[in-house]
């Protein structure tokens, strides 16, 4: 059968099913196949807070969206071109955002009366039959029956055989988009290495899906999405949480410090704990503490002892850690605090994404308690952001908050593997001897005598003879670090701690402005995970003939030294955020610029189209 292959430049697929249907696995495999093929990809897993809500219900739907393209993409796509719906609930939950004309692949075996009712369809009516899918290209496939049929030769209980339908679907989609299959076959063999019969069954289901596409007429000849041009280098697909864990390990290694993670599990940060737990041979120690306070406390204790102390959490955990972060500010010890933000307030939307912890990170402590704050901007960038957080923490002897979010944490993208020697050198420069002399001329150690350049204090770790000293949360006398209630000293120390954080700006590279035409009068300024949607929207604006400049902040405190000047260059500055305008407020407080805030707090990334409209509106009116 030779049919025509359609070439397209980008495709968005959304896989949706029950929490137990293995949609995340299908998404991961499709992603791996696409990156190996050479497309650029961006992914977005979207799952419920329940572990496994009752089968077939709307709250139980788990989805995975991927955009892959023959050019650079920075978001998982606003809307799917193809929806794979494993049951009625998955169809119902995802139909809302689906543009007419999209392909909809459903497992007809699941569209039983009972399942339709569970999904909330009126009794006796199937969307497959009532015309409500008119306008879509519906592919009604008996996925379950076909899978069970394909696995007849295996001696599997029917339930187990049915479970293979996710692999069948993966096979079908792999055929549709001409994906390479070797890696998935190898993956399945390894995953089920201990149960070869299961491996074989999964491979059989996968192959059956592929063959179904090949032999049926309904999918035409499939589509081709050419590979995307890329900088030369070695690449892999990576999620934000993994990249962040790798960044911590690599930076600790560069600094020659053992890494100590004190953490308490919390969605969506737990995978960093999991990943680091697997790397004990790097000198990494992971400590699952009794709570968030103990997690950061243990990390701080380890830092006092000369390790790189790290703690990882999400918003509610950061709230609990706030008192201890204040202690770390007072002790001036290196400490990295990772906050993978999720929807708030309170328990909020634990599995959704948001950027609403920025102000908490900056101000969520008693007293004047400055802490450098950074944010990662893409899954792969979590690596570099983590390295930068460690660099600042160690160089300036300070706790650092690194913000990620649920979208970065679980989303993935191709990532160029850096060479180790591209990474910055980080020097702990432990104190080894006296740094001052007493009133009577004896050499002595002053734990709060500062480096004139960085304002960092010495890091003298237990075990170093002659440098015995005591630190604590009470105000300390300048230089000696002794308890001091002196008024002038307190004022000095408060301003010095602030000045030390401000010093960091001196060592930052200039901001990168993306303005190909060089004539834009509108700047879109973002931070954190909005980078992808903003970049995509700007590209679209320019493609339509508009002019817009774009810059993105990694450093939220201190701001880069050239930020004020940059803001002043544009007639209008638009700041899109997934909160109620936190960065916008900070910018207005700091610079005499009337930035405009574009906010959305929907638990998910901005849609490119919305951003584009907003930017065009601003650009039209300069």
């Amino acid at each position, binding site marked *: 059968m030779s049919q025509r292959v359609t070439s397209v430049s980008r495709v968005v697929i959304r896989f949706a099913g029950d929490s137990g249907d293995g949609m995340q696995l299908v998404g991961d495999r499709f992603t*791996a196949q696409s990156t190996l093929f050479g497309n650029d990809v961006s992914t977005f897993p979207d799952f419920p807070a329940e572990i496994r809500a009752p089968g077939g219900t709307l709250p139980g739907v788990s989805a995975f969206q991927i955009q892959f393209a023959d050019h650079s993409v920075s978001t998982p796509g606003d809307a799917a071109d193809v929806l794979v719906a494993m049951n009625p609930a998955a169809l119902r939950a995802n139909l809302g955002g689906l543009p007419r004309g999209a392909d909809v692949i459903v497992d007809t075996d699941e569209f039983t009366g009972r399942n339709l009712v569970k999904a909330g369809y009126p009794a006796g009516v199937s969307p497959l039959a009532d015309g409500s899918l008119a306008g879509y290209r519906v592919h009604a496939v008996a996925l379950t029956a076909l899978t069970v049929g394909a696995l007849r030769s295996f001696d599997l209980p029917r339930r187990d055989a049915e479970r293979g339908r996710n692999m069948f679907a993966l096979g079908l989609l792999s055929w549709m988009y001409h994906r390479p299959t070797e890696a998935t076959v190898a993956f399945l063999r390894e995953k089920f290495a201990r149960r070869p019969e299961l491996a074989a069954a999964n491979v059989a289901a996968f192959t059956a899906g592929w063959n179904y596409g090949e032999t049926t007429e309904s999918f035409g000849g499939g589509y081709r999405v050419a590979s995307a041009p890329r*900088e030369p280098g070695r690449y*892999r697909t990576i999620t934000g949480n993994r990249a962040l864990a790798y960044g911590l390990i690599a930076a600790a290694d560069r600094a020659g410090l*053992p890494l100590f993670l004190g953490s308490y599990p919390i969605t969506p940060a737990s995978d960093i704990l999991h990943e680091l737990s697997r790397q004990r041979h*790097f*000198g990494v120690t992971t400590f699952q503490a*009794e709570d968030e306070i103990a997690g950061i406390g243990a990390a*701080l204790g380890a830092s006092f002892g000369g390790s790189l102390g790290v703690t990882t959490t999400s918003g509610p955990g950061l709230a609990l850690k706030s008192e201890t972060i204040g202690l770390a500010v007072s002790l001036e010890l290196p400490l990295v605090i990772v906050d993978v933000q999720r929807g708030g307030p309170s328990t909020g939307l634990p599995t959704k994404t948001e950027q609403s912890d920025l102000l908490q990170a900056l101000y969520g402590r008693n007293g004047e308690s400055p802490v450098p704050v950074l944010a990662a901007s893409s899954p792969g960038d979590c690596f570099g952001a983590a390295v930068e957080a460690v660099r600042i923490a160690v160089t300036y002897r300070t706790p650092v908050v690194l913000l990620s979010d649920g979208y970065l944490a679980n989303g993935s993208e191709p990532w160029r593997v850096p060479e180790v020697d591209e990474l910055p050198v980080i020097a702990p420069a432990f104190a080894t001897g006296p740094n001052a002399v007493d009133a009577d001329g004896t050499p002595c150690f002053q734990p709060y005598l500062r480096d004139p350049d960085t304002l960092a204090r010495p890091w003298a*770790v237990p075990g170093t003879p*002659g440098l015995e000293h005591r630190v604590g949360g009470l105000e300390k006398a300048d230089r000696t670090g002794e308890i001091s209630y002196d008024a002038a000293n307190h004022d000095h120390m408060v301003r010095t701690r602030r000045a030390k954080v401000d010093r960091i700006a001196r060592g930052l590279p200039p901001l990168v402005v993306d303005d190909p035409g060089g004539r834009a009068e509108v700047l879109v300024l973002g931070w954190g995970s909005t980078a992808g949607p903003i970049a995509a929207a700007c590209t679209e604006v320019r493609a339509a003939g508009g002019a817009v400049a774009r810059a993105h902040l990694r450093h939220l405190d201190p701001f880069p030294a050239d930020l004020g000047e940059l803001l002043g260059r544009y007639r209008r500055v638009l700041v899109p955020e997934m909160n109620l305008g936190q960065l916008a407020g900070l910018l207005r407080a700091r610079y005499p610029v009337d930035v405009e805030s574009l906010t959305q707090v929907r638990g998910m990334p901005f849609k490119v189209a919305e951003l584009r409209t907003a930017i065009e509106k601003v650009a039209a009116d300069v």
Partner: protein
Amino acid sequence: MSDTPLLTIAERPASPPSARDFRSDQEVRWCPGCGDYAILAAVQGFLPELGLRRENIVFVSGIGCSSRFPYYLDTYGMHSIHGRAPAIATGLAVSRPDLSVWVVTGDGDALSIGGNHLIHALRRNVNLKILLFNNRIYGLTKGQYSPTSETGKITKSTPEGSLDHPFNPVSLALGAEAGFVARTLDSDRKHLTSVLRAAAAHEGTALVEIYQNCNIFNDGAFERLKAPGTRDEHVLRLEHGAPMRYGPAGVRTVVRDPGGGLRPGAADDAAVVHDAHTSDPVPAFALSRLPEAGGPTPIGVFRSVRRPTYDGAVAEQGRRVRAARGPGSVADLLGGGDTWTVPAPFGSEAR
């Protein structure tokens, strides 16, 4: 990296340091007459016995009068925040098994705000020596009742009398899987020192409850156990392997109840022999309840049983993994998983 100490630890000193060497240059700022002074003197007097150099000893405290302790010792020290010392010390001890790590805490610090960290440290058996200064009052905040204050206590925050039933710190520790629990008195330097010695020798978390007089807000709380006229009647001095006798000239005995608990016996009863090392925590728990059964207050080591330490297990696991997988290579880690290579365009510079 984690199992190699960061710095080469200096050898044990040829001539061990003296008590003087452990005195810092900071002025001691407790109220005159506070029991903390006696404890400080005893600790300074004892530390040389450790045979360690000052730089290898760390004292971590929380907040409270007692938690000022580290400032007065010329070792490494941290005066942290209220209740968190066990957590902070856990991170230090796990990451630096070469150090001798001590925690100083109060009844409010350890049992009120810090109760959770305390019980988790005990359960894990981290190699920490925890000195709990129990004065049955909040000293630093000027006299509110604490979780060890007796019910009905009139304090600033309970002008009509407190209503909470107190914790028995020894019972609580034993319920939390403690391997070493002892109790001693601020004023009995010899006994205090002997208990410190036992705690230091124990591998794992050692909890030492020290009855401490706060002469400002709860004066005389332990007078009965200290006054020459009453102490014999009210104190049972525990010694492993010795029968439990107390009272003037040891005329009183402690005997076992049919239910398993302990109670005061008759003079000619066979006194129960104290076994601090039995793996069963029940005998120690029974001892902790003796005062409730009308018996004396035991001081000394209730329980001293070895089980694997957490920090030891962490180090051991690290070694095992490293032996199996070799030291980690960052390049291999980053380049692991499914990777693909985009070749440099023909003719371009190789990098």
